[in-house]
């Protein structure tokens, strides 16, 4: 039963952090190149433009959800299982979600990168 809770929490982390990353990424594409905006509009305008973006706020909410799911997962299982499992699954989930929702061209190169990094994270924590 504990296993079910742990993997449920890991699934929640992966889902929430992927949602957060996709939303924040979409928000920042709407905001535009921050480096150029900083030169043209100044810091306060840029910050306002970012934090008034609904996608950004939803993304933050999703990231907070991921953080609290992580805390729950950590109370049920060891960090050496939870951290690498959720981090590496998030890399793979992000590659899929970025392709579907952000229309990024996830080619062989990016798939290879996502899988290599995911495998590397597992080994690093093992």
């Amino acid at each position, binding site marked *: 039963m504990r296993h079910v809770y742990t993997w449920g929490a890991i699934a929640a982390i992966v889902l929430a952090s992927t949602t957060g*990353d*996709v939303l*924040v*990424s979409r928000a*920042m*594409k*709407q*905001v*535009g*190149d*921050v*480096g*150029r*905006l900083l030169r043209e509009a100044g810091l306060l305008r840029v910050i306002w433009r*970012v934090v008034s973006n609904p996608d*950004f706020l939803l993304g933050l909410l999703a990231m907070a959800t991921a953080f609290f799911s992580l805390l729950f997962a950590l109370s049920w299982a060891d960090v050496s299982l939870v951290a690498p499992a959720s981090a590496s699954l998030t*890399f793979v989930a*992000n*590659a899929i979600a*970025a*392709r579907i929702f*952000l*229309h*990024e*061209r*996830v*080619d062989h*190169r*990016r798939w*290879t*990168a*996502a*899988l*290599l*990094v995911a*495998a*590397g*994270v*597992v*080994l*690093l*924590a*093992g």
Partner: protein
Amino acid sequence: MSFRKWLVLAGVAVFGSVGDCLLSRGMKEVGPLSLAHLSGLFSAIFDPFIVLGILFLLGFFASYTMALSWADLTYVLPASSLGYVLLALMARFLLHEQISLLRWLGILLISAGVGFVTRGPALTHPPQSEECVPEPEASGVRS
């Protein structure tokens, strides 16, 4: 890809890993928290390592959102995972932890993945920003 953009990507990796390192060091000083004694959280907030760690993680979030404003998510994430490598190297050389053969292999895999993705374009889907003039080639147009 301009030097400034490389600097932002490096910032994502460095701020993230150093921030985690500082938080971990700080929480070891504070000791385990319990829900019954939430006052422990306050002493955690005033621990210098925690304060510094939070500042670094704010820096991480700033450079992360900045990078996402001109690069794909599937580009920024692998690139920022170099932070894991930095974290392992810091653990080895600053905290004098032992790194097993498997961990060195993990470092190798992550570095290879980062090498793969950074040789491609940073942006594959031009953003449709209402106010900005769209930039057809995001990499290396301006310096």
